């Protein structure tokens, strides 16, 4: 048993009592203490809570109780999900030291399943960013190359997987925040269908786009976690009241014979790094070998997706972030007994929010303001309709759509932080999925020849057909593993101090 094993292997070992949950948690805390000073994936470690949960699971197992498959397996939680009495900062100064008095539904489900939550992971402030450089608590470093970004906003969760600090993680994805970090760290991440996983307790960035999802090192591990966190939640009005597709069975099936796989014409070509395109094409060749049928589809309105996204998400965020006002929770600045509530509110929001957050709040305030609403927010909503139509048409011709997840491999920390537009381009291939509310997965498809850094392969499936992503992802992963001879993370440099 090693921390480099997959979650399902850990689950087996726990089941066979080869290792206890407490030992497994301690092994991970051990690894974290060795490597996280360099990676900085975690913002908070809950050793006490994690070990208490692990002990409980061990006790139940000893008593012969029936346990969920992931009982005792450790997990890293993105710091955007509330966990009762545990700091939840969203990577922002304005929430520093806030301990929510309630559990998010995802956390409730994890706790009920006996999953051991190690701590909270770093992220771009309020999930706004593609590099985790926008965290108020310092950037996370990519375990493949510590001078590079781990993607974002969920860079902490993805890096924790790649650095073997946790075998499972929770991310959230508004425009690619699960998939793009997965792509640049050589891990797997899934954005489920909108409404598939409850948003209750997910601190909202953009309510109509946000979706929590599973992250892991393999497709099957991701499916096992998906099964635990998905399902209807009466506390979330936008939660889908339908059975969760059997994603675990799909991940194990390894058979894509006769499936129609559509390549989106608009998500390739100019702007995509050569090595990214090459690895993507290699993966397509593997799928052909497996008996899948490849078709090319056109989604002409995808070229407007980025623009529409950068109106809709900021608009919703300008309203969602209004509640950070120094009254009921979080930071308060400038309360000297003389200044008014309004002045204190203004000073707090100025001091508590970072540059990118302020930029988006201002942009969203503008897009919703009278006189500009129709031209900006209204037009963006229309683009959303067109993107949905593009997907609907495409899915009449194929079962899933595929593309590279991100246009480039991991870039250097600091490289794009002064150019918002260049930064926004990272999400060009992931955003359409959020706009339409469908599912998207990223899994590694090789190392780009220019820089030996991982490349992500994106699979998109129609709403509530999440099992199709796991079916294709599982089969492709198995084919690539046999081609490479070892998991992709075994190609990554061993981190100093690591086991």
């Amino acid at each position, binding site marked *: 048993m090693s921390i480099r094993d997959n979650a399902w292997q850990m689950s087996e070992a726990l089941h066979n009592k080869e290792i206890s949950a407490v030992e497994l948690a301690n092994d991970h805390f051990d690894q974290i203490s060795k490597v996280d000073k360099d990676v900085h994936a975690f913002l908070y470690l809950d050793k006490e809570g994690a070990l208490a949960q692990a002990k409980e699971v061990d006790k139940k197992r000893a008593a012969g109780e029936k346990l969920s498959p992931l009982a005792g397996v450790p997990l890293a939680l993105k710091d955007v999900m509330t966990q009762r009495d545990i700091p939840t900062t969203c990577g922002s100064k304005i929430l520093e030291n806030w301990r929510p*008095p309630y559990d998010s539904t995802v956390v409730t489900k994890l706790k009920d399943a006996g999953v051991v939550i190690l701590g909270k992971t770093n992220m771009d402030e309020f999930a706004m960013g593609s590099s985790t450089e926008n965290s108020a608590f310092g950037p996370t470093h990519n375990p493949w190359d510590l001078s590079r970004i781990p993607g974002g906003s969920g860079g902490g969760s993805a890096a924790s997987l790649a650095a073997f600090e946790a075998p499972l993680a929770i991310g959230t994805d508004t425009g690619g925040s699960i998939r793009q970090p997965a792509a640049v760290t050589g891990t797997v991440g899934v954005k489920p269908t909108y409404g598939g996983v409850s948003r209750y307790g997910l601190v909202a960035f953009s309510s*109509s786009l946000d979706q929590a999802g599973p992250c892991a090192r393999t497709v099957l591990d991701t499916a096992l976690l998906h099964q635990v966190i998905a399902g209807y939640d009466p506390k979330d009005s936008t939660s889908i009241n339908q059975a969760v597709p059997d994603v675990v069975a799909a991940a194990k099936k390894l058979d894509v014979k006769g499936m129609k796989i559509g390549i989106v014409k608009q998500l390739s070509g100019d702007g995509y790094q050569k090595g990214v395109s090459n690895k993507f094409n290699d993966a397509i060749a593997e799928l052909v070998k497996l008996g899948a049928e490849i078709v090319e589809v056109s989604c002409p309105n995808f070229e407007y997706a980025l623009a529409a996204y950068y109106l809709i998400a900021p608009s919703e965020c300008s309203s969602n972030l209004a509640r950070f006002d120094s009254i009921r929770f979080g930071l308060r600045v400038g309360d000297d007994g003389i200044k008014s*509530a309004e*002045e204190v509110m203004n000073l707090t929001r100025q001091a508590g929010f970072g540059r990118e957050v302020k930029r988006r709040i201002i942009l969203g305030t503008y897009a919703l303001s009278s006189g500009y609403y129709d031209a900006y927010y209204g037009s963006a909503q229309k*683009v959303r309709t067109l993107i949905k139509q593009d997907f609907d048409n495409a899915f009449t011709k194929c079962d899933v759509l595929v593309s590279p997840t991100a246009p480039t491999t991991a870039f250097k920390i600091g490289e794009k932080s002064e150019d918002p537009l260049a930064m926004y381009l990272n999400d060009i291939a992931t955003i359409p999925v959020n706009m339409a509310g469908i599912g998207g997965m990223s899994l590694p498809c090789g190392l780009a020849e220019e820089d030996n850094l991982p490349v992500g392969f994106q699979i998109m499936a129609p709403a509530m057909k999440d099992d199709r992503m796991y079916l294709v992802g599982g089969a492709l992963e198995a084919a690539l593993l046999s081609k490479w001879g070892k998991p992709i993370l075994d190609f990554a440099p061993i981190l100093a101090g690591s086991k």
Partner: protein
Amino acid sequence: MAAISRDEVANLARLARISMSDAELDHLAGEMDVILGAVARVQEVASADVAPTSHPLAVNNVTREDVVTTSLTPAQALSGAPASAEQRFKVPQILGEE
């Protein structure tokens, strides 16, 4: 001509309750101008015959029964408050409507 003036940005900051410094407003006005130029592209295809989509779900009438559930205790409710007194959230003097 710039799509947005510095004064407009200052007014947006006021609406959003952020007391930005002058330097920040100057810088942001420039950035906003570039960003707005890029996102304005949505207008190219947003013709009158396209219906807007505000939400990806096509679900209606999600409600809950009128049943009382357990509230937080006042201590829990106030646990995150920067200041409190008399079991209430304490805020500096409010200027505004009575």
